[in-house]
Every structure is written in C-alpha cells, then in structure tokens.
C-alpha cells in the first residue's frame, strides 16, 4: 500500500487541501471567509472524496497558513513560509525568490534548495495585500477578476498618491469623477499595490527565478506591474493558490521518510473531520 500525504493551508480567505503520493492526486480550494470559518474541514472532506480515499489512508497531515494552529486532525503545524518554499521549489527547482500575495497578507521569501533563507511579511496594513484591491474594486464597481485585463489595456496608468486604503479609495472615486479612464485608474491601483509589495520584497536579496503565488498571482496586470517594479521576470505556477498546501504535504513526506530511516516513532493525530476553530 502506498503512502498518502496531505497538506491543508488555511488562509484568511481560502482553504486549500492537497493530497499527494508520488504526485498530486487531489486538490481542492474552498472559501474560509468569516461565514465559512468553521467549514475548513469540508474542504478536507471534498479532497478525500476527490481522491477516493478514507481519511485513515492519510499517512501524515501537515497544516499551514493563518488557521493552522487549531486543526485537530493535523499531525504537525508548519508556517506557510516553510511550506511555500518547499512547494514552489518542487514546481520550480531553480526558484530563488517567492512572492506570495494573499487576501490579508503578502510575503517575500528567498529560498535555497527548498528551504527559506530569509523572509519579509506584511499583515498589518491592508494596502499591500489583496484586501486593498478588493476595497478599490468595490468602490469602482468592478470585479477583482476583471482588474488584471483592464489594467493591461491602459496606456497611461493614473498616479495614485495615497497608500492608505481609505484615502486611496477616496482618491480613486474623485479621479473617476474627474474623468480619468477606468482602465488607467485600475492600472494605477495595481501599480501602487505592486510598488508597495516590491519595496517590501526588496529588503531581501532578490534573485532569479522569481515565482509569484497566492490569489494575487492570478491577476495578470498585477504580475506585470510587479515584474516591472522589481526588474525581474516572474513565473506563476499553473495553480498559484495551492503551493503552500503542496509544500505542507511534501514536508509531511520528508518527516515520515526521516522517521522511517532512523526508526523513530511518528506522532499522529486521530483522523476525524472535526470542525476547525479559526481564531
């Protein structure tokens, strides 16, 4: 019987579950928003169903992300920094720098052979995260998904001087009333966000290859703006949301292999799909 490893990455807006043996056999993404905060276990359940596995078949399960602390069925908790490093290195062996743009935080990680060597994080201020985009999109009455394409059409991105989310919201509404084209405004907002993220990431020793993950990676306009600001070409995984969960599963595999090799006991939790209390 082959071993199965699962990774669950509970982010502030999305929960991601990946089940692997030699490759990915199942991956599910579901919401973690305020209403669904107790539903993260459902995502696990869906992933097991997709893989056609009973929960007991999972040899080792690692939880990561903002909600990792209270996962009752996880054998180990590892931070998303280490998991992203592991997961991205698996997909892009030459990767040296990761930029993860999530719903409520963003981070930069430099890695060497799948291990983080340094990192920076912003979770204090909405302005450098997906939340900024969400607020602005709402003010402009457009969808977040549409932003990327709109920005790419702009020839002259508007200059947004305010960093503070509240002020920036006032500013874009005023500029829209002045008649600044919507595409230019959206492009300006993405540039502002990219600039905020890039100056945080530049605290690290950025090197090629640079991989962007998280929800922000799905926004082509943001990825382009970020590449420009950083002065580096960037790569995006086929599914940028699951790299943390992939890394978690792979770290679990490492732990099991190390334990087997050294004949060490493995501490494992009961496999029951209890609700997860996310703080």
């Amino acid at each position, binding site marked *: 019987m082959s071993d199965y490893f699962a990774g669950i990455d509970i982010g502030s807006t999305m929960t991601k579950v990946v089940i692997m043996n030699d490759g990915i056999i199942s991956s599910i993404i579901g919401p973690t928003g305020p209403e669904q905060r107790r539903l993260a276990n459902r995502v696990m359940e869906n992933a097991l169903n997709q893989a056609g596995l009973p929960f007991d078949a999972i040899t080792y399960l690692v939880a990561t992300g903002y909600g990792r602390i209270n996962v009752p069925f996880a054998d180990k908790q590892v931070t998303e920094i280490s998991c992203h490093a592991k997961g991205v290195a698996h997909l892009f062996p030459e990767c040296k720098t990761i930029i993860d743009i999530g719903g409520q935080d963003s981070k930069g990680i430099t890695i060497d052979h799948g291990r983080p060597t340094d990192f920076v994080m912003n979770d204090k201020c909405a302005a450098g995260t997906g939340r900024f985009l969400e607020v602005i999109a709402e003010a402009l009455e457009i969808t977040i998904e549409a932003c990327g394409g709109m920005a790419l059409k702009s020839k*002259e991105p*508007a*200059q947004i*001087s*305010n*960093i*503070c989310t509240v*002020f920036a919201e*006032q*500013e874009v509404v*005023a500029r829209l009333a002045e008649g600044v084209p919507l595409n230019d405004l959206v492009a300006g907002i993405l540039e502002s966000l990219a*600039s905020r993220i890039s*100056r*945080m990431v*530049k*605290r690290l020793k950025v090197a090629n290859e640079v991989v962007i993950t998280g929800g922000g990676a799905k926004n082509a306009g943001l990825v382009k703006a970020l590449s420009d600001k950083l002065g580096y070409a960037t790569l995006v995984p086929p599914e940028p949301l699951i790299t943390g969960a992939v890394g978690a599963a792979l770290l679990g595999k490492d732990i099991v292999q190390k334990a087997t090799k050294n004949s060490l006991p493995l501490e494992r939790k009961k496999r029951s799909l209890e609700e997860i209390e996310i703080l």
Partner: protein
Amino acid sequence: MAEEEKKQERKKRRTATEAASSIGAMVKAAIGGTVKAKEEGKKLAYSFIVCSYDEIIRAMDVVPVWTENYAGVCGAKRDAERFLERAESQSFSRSLCTYALCGLGFDQWREELGEMPPDAPWGGQARPDFMLSSGQILCDPRNKWYQAAQQYMPDVPIYDVGLPYPLYEDDIEVADVQDYYIKYIVAELRGLVKFLEEQTGKKMDYDRLSELVDLGERTWNLIWETYELRRAVPTPMGTGDAMNTMVPMVFMMGTQEAYDFYLDLNKELKDKIARKEGVVEDEKYRLLWGGGLPSWFALTDFNYFNSKGAVFPVETTYRMIEPIYRLNMPDTNDPIERLAWRWLGYWTYWYDKAKKRPGSEPDVERLIQYIEDYQIDGVVMHEAFSCRTWHLGLIWQLNQLRKIYKPIPVLILGQDGKKGEEKRELPSLILESDIIDISTYSEVDTRNRIDAFIETLEQVRKNKADRR
C-alpha cells in the same frame, strides 16, 4: 507621472511678497551650486540647519549641503516617494523621520550608481567630504542620520557637535547651570573648528569668523524687526510666505546675501503697509501657526486659508531668531563664545516670562505673546507623523494655553454703550499629515477640517457680536 499633474506642479504657488516668490530660484541655484562646488574641488559638508555652526562653516569656506533642505525639495516637488521606498527596502521603518529616510534612500541610490539617481530633483544632492551631525536635545535623527548614511559612504567621516540647552525647571534658573553648558558648547564648537582644519588643511581665520558672527547677529536683529512688521492690519505677509523666506535664515546665515534679502523684504513689507495692501483683500481672521513643520507638498493649503479670508501674520515654526540685544549675552570678543551664548540665549529666551505666569511654560508663553502682539483669532498646528522633534507636546501646549489663558478678560464696549467683559475664545485646529510623505495626506480631508475650523471662527465672532 500624468501630464495633468506635471502641469499642476509647474504652476507656481501664489505668494504675497516678491521676496517669497524669489526663493525657489535661490534654493535651486544653491543646490546646483553645491554640485558645481564639488567639481571645483571645494569641500562639502552634509549639515543640519539650526546648529549654531553656520558662521564657522562659512568662515572655513566649506560648502554646506543642507540635507533637510534637499528632502524638503523632493517633498515639495512631490518626488520623495521613490527615495522613501528605497530607504524602506533597506529595512528602515517608514515610521522614522522622512527627511532622513528620503536622504538615506537618495544616498544609497547615488552611491550604488556612482552618479546622481535618474531625474534627481534639481540636479541632485552632491556627495559630501564629511558630515556634521548634531547631538542636541532637539532631534534624535540629527544624531543618527549621518551615521546611517555612513553605511553607504564608509569613507566619509563624521563630526558630532554636542549642543545641549537646559530644559525649563521650577527649581533651577538658567544662570545656575549656564557656565557648564557654555563651557561644553564652546569645547564642542572648538572641536568642530579643529576637525574642519584637519579636513580642509587650512587654518581658521578668527578675524573673518568675528566679522561673520557680527553679520549673523545683525541679520538676526533685522529678521526680527522685519517679521514684527507683520503685526500690521491687514498683515502684509503670511506663514505661507514665511515658509519660503525662512530659507536665507536657516540656510544662508552669516552671508551678506541673507542680510540683503531681509533688507529687501523689510522694504517691501513697509511699502505694502503704507499702501494698506494685505495678503488678502478682505482680512477676516488672523491665525497663529502655533507649531509643526508644514507639509511641503501642500503649501497651497495656506492659499486655501487665504481664500476664506484667513491669514497667518505669525508662526512659531522657523522663527529661529530673537533680537540679539535681548539675549543677555555677556561681553566677549571670542566669536566661538558668542555663538555658544547665542545658542543658549535663543533656547532659553522665554524662560523668564514663563516664570512670571503660574502654570505657564516657555512654549506656551511664546504662543500667548504672539496671540496678543499679532491680534490672533485662532491657532493652527500641524502634526507630522514622522517627526517627534517638533510635534510632541503640541496637544498639551494647546490644552495648557486654554487653561491659563482663558482668565484673561478683554474689555469691550457694547452697542448700548455699556462696558462689558468677555473671555477670549481661541479656537484651534490640528492638521495631521507629514513633512514630505504625501501618501499620508488627503486634500479632501484637510480642506474639510479647514472649512469646519473657519465655521467655528465665524461662530465665535457671531457670538461676540450677539453679546454686544
């Protein structure tokens, strides 16, 4: 940058005086001059304003590079952000003094490139031969900024000039401690002379220094007399202009050019007063800029006040002079000692007055004096988030002012011919933003606050009229 913004930037801010409108070109020439001086092989020193060493630098023919000025220029041109971002990328917190962050971002970039950063405002800030830090009660960044800059210029030496002054205490008079303060400051300034002699390879000419100190003292007196002309109703010059006319005071002290500038300004103000020409046509409210450095990128806010009939005949900010003859300076021919006494005299100038009013304090006393001398209707302050030096204690000063100044009655003659008495009501406004970090500024929010403040002033006036 969008075209329309460029246009906005080019449009010159309206000033009341010719003198103020001539400042932009003057600063540009001075900054360009440092780059040129460097090419000519002159010695350049990173310097801080208000450090009592102006005349010493000038007498040694050292060219000061005023790093605070350059950061302010970047701010005024709305081009500080990229330097602030660079500093942030170097792991400097964005909550620190943004002048210093802007300067450090600029220095790091210039040193990395080996030349000026692209499109550097006004040609850029030249690389110094040495840096003159200042350890005072005044400002932590003055003690830390250049040391941090040394990370990018490890070969550039620093001299840190200690310049303390005693804080106001109930149980201690300045006279009790001044001897050891003066002794220390003199030793520090002599140490500076020695450092400059080593760096430039030439000896200080003390006769020349004495002449420049004379000139500096005459300039102090002239500025004081000139600024006092602004008491006139309508006032011929406001704080918006003063944020320009401070340039010769703090960047050119000890030069004939500075003295001549204030001669011209003096004449201009007298002419305006003779013609009864005010900052605004219909002067309604006279305000005191009671503390805080301005937002250099939003000096047009002063014009906005003006558009509501409000003027600022006086400000505490950048009025870095007092009349020399009132500073109780002892007779001495030693120019270094004179500089030390001037330093101490300036910072303790209001102490005696404060002792006379229970509950008062020098900074509050200064506000009261200006309120009375300049017939002030309201106080405006600015809290710049990144600068603790000038912006801590302001709220308390306003609270204390309210507490101790209220009992001062103003006698009035009512419409019915009866004598009455009323208490001064002095509304105040605190604006919040930064010196050069535009990302914290909201024009909409600022102007809303100004509108509300003007309405309060109107209401106070109406209440007074109703009572008559």
